[in-house]
């Protein structure tokens, strides 16, 4: 006799986390608490509780300090940064050059990450096509050792 696999429904937290990512992908920005509440048919307070758990317990996203607004759902940034990702007519912000490239990799898209050298201010761009680097400028610098990345996720 074979045992039938039982599909366990995914938790609200998991569904909400994924929807936030899909919103970033499709709408190119983070959803607001109100938008999330409307989508899931729950109250803003309940959304804020989920967002708090996703940040503190699941380490799944970063909220703007002192708020329940999304700052980062890595590799996406909800706020403007110096790492602009463009693919076709869509545009996102990455949290750093790593995250900028990761957005194109995650979505399997051709595109360009544009930034500027922090020292010379020279505009720099990295282009990806067919999941391959096509046009590369510059060198990468990470200032903070890996063990300290999460001490201040806004600066690495």
């Amino acid at each position, binding site marked *: 006799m074979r045992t039938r696999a039982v599909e366990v429904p995914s938790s609200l937290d998991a569904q909400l986390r*994924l929807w936030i*990512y899909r919103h970033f992908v499709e709408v190119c920005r983070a959803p607001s608490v109100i938008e999330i509440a409307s989508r899931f048919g729950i109250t803003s307070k309940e959304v804020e509780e989920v967002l708090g758990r996703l940040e503190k317990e*699941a380490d799944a996203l970063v909220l703007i300090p002192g708020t329940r607004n999304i700052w980062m759902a890595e590799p996406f940034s909800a706020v403007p940064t110096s790492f602009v990702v463009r693919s076709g007519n869509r545009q996102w912000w990455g949290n750093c050059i*790593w995250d900028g490239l990761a957005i194109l990799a995650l979505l399997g898209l051709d595109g360009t990450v544009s*930034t500027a*050298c922090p020292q010379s201010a020279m505009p720099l761009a990295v282009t990806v096509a067919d999941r391959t*680097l096509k046009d590369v400028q510059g*060198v990468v*610098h*990470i200032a903070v050792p890996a063990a300290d990345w999460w001490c201040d996720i806004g600066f690495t």
Partner: protein
Amino acid sequence: MSLFRSEEDVHAWCEERQRAAGAIFDVATLWRLAAVWYDDRLDLNWKRRTIGERQAILDAVGLSGPFWRLTSS
């Protein structure tokens, strides 16, 4: 993590801020890292990878040594 025009620009930027340079490496290495680090983020039941799993990714793309250890111990 930023993109600089050259290694010289990295060192000048660090000197102006009186801080030691971190790690400098090429964009091709970063692309290999970026391609796998977040590749599970669109999975419904995503869970953050363990430190060991993340360390293995860094090692696999050639980012190894004390600077790249995810734990200080």
